[in-house]
């Protein structure tokens, strides 16, 4: 078997074709024959996984056709439209590259350490809630979700003017030990507390307990912001959202599983008449992480990601307040070493003109939220922990 045929068989396998026994055996032998062939096979698998993750999550990078024509560069691959490598120095484009993968899994691949990456100075959010309150420890039976208590009156964190208020017929709870409280055997949250590490090993600072929305309709847990704690340029009277300013938000979240079809659990900025919802949305049939503008209680301009809500994620959002409609730009699982570009965003949508003086977390499907941060820039809301990973 030659290299071209081996690559075709790997491609066929990863495109979902069933290899014949003869082809599978021949490919196996080819991979095991020598190191170079094994390396080539690994790189081909890497290529597939990268393409799947990169394109499904972010789409293709902007085409360089225009630049290509300008530079009159020769084409590689004839009718494949692939240009020859440019001689210009290329700029590092951080993306969600999953696949260091097999290497990382097996060889203990050492990604570049966080400290080796360029990073600006960190600052601090003007509002932070880490839900480090006493956990709810009583057992919860089926159809017995608590109807009172919850987060009512809890007033930790910083940057808020009042305590949390429960307004639903069910309440949110504080969870300290997801592995001991799976809602069912298939609860995706049971393997640990919410957390996030980017592809370079940068770890978002997170600690303590987390909020869990109700399993069943519905919990609505809200808290008013201390508007005066925000930078002046963000303030518009007694709310946030002065035209020309940008507000950054981040939080960790993970749902019980990835089911959609009307199930929801989201964080809302603003009110039900005008605002922005981010999370698992009732109007997103897929159950994937989504965002929508809110107007008169209805979700509009829905945008859905390819990321299932059963997967824990870090969501970072920037709301650009402008005269008239606002613009929301959302990244799911961005790298932490530098602010992500708009081209790398996962979701973008216009929202109605709105101001905010509170945040709310509503749910009718058990979903965890943690480490809510509001700030004036990306670094405010993405602090990196200095603690080492290894015990």
């Amino acid at each position: 078997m030659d290299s071209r045929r081996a690559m075709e068989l790997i491609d066929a396998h990863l495109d979902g074709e069933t290899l014949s026994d003869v082809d599978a055996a021949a490919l196996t032998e080819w991979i095991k024959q020598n190191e170079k062939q094994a390396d080539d096979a690994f790189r081909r698998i890497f290529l597939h996984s990268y393409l799947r993750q990169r394109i499904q999550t972010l789409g293709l990078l902007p085409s360089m056709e225009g630049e290509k024509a300008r530079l009159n560069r020769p084409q590689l691959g004839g009718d494949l439209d692939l240009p020859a490598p440019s001689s210009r120095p290329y700029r590092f484009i951080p993306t969600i590259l999953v696949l260091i993968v097999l290497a990382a899994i097996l060889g203990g691949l050492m990604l570049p350490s966080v400290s080796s990456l360029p990073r600006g100075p960190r600052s601090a959010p003007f509002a932070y809630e880490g839900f480090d309150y006493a956990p709810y420890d009583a057992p919860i039976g089926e159809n017995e979700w608590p109807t009172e208590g919850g987060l009512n009156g809890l007033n930790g964190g910083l940057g808020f003017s009042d305590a949390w208020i429960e307004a639903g017929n069910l309440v949110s709870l504080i969870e300290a030990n997801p592995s001991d409280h799976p809602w069912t055997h298939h609860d995706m949250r049971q393997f640990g507390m919410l957390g996030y590490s980017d592809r370079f090993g940068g770890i978002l600072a997170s600690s303590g307990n987390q909020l869990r929305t109700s399993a069943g309709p519905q919990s609505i847990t809200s808290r008013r912001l201390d508007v005066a704690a925000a930078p002046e340029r963000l303030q518009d009277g007694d709310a946030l959202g002065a035209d020309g300013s940008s507000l950054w938000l981040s939080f960790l979240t993970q749902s019980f599983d990835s089911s959609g079809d009307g199930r929801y659990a989201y964080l809302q900025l603003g009110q039900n008449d005008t605002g922005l919802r981010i999370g698992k949305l009732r109007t997103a049939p897929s159950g994937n992480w989504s965002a929508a503008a809110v107007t008169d209680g209805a979700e509009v301009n829905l945008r859905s990601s390819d990321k299932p809500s059963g997967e824990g994620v870090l969501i970072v959002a920037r709301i650009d307040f402008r005269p008239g409609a606002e613009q929301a730009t959302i990244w799911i699982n961005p790298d932490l070493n530098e602010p992500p570009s708009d081209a790398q965003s996962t979701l973008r949508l216009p929202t109605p003109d709105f101001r905010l003086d509170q945040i709310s977390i509503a749910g009718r499907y058990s979903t965890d939220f943690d480490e809510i941060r509001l700030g004036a820039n990306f670094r405010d809301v993405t602090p990196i922990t200095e603690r080492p990973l290894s015990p």
Partner: protein
Amino acid sequence: MNQPAENSPPSNALTPAQSRELLARSWVKAQSSVLAFVIASTPQFTDAEDLLQEVAAEIAIRFDEYDVSRPFLPWAFWVAKIKIADFYRGKKREKLVFVGEAMDALVEACTRVQDMMTEEQQALNECLGATTGRSRELLTMRYAQDMKPRQIAAKLGMSAAAVRVTLSRVRTALSDCVNQRLGRNAS
């Protein structure tokens, strides 16, 4: 293959809180890697997502067996391999093809090329951004829309064989582009 060592300190030597934190931190680092491995072993993306959930649950259940003095990733991979084998046993009519038998060789390949992966990713990003025309169309249909070659063929009025060959050539061209950017001879 990295398996838990006997007579070494398991994670239950930690306090429950330490153990939970270690599991959470280890998993968030390992998750994307495990997913990619699962994709390589289980090319149907929906199957891979289901299987990843099974792997995650198994890791949580077995975490007390984890030897904290050893790297987490190889242990997670060992668990993933068990679940992948279970998955294929459950399928009965399907079988894990080359990945299973060739896995040890691929493990060694990972070790050899690991130091070059970061720059390879950067080069690949640039090469991907430079695709145009039919190449971009096929890549988008295959990966963004998760269409199989047969479905792409029906939509574009091509034969399935032509789609498979063209996609394979696009991938080879991308690989050659990466090699040239990195100053290596194309393989």
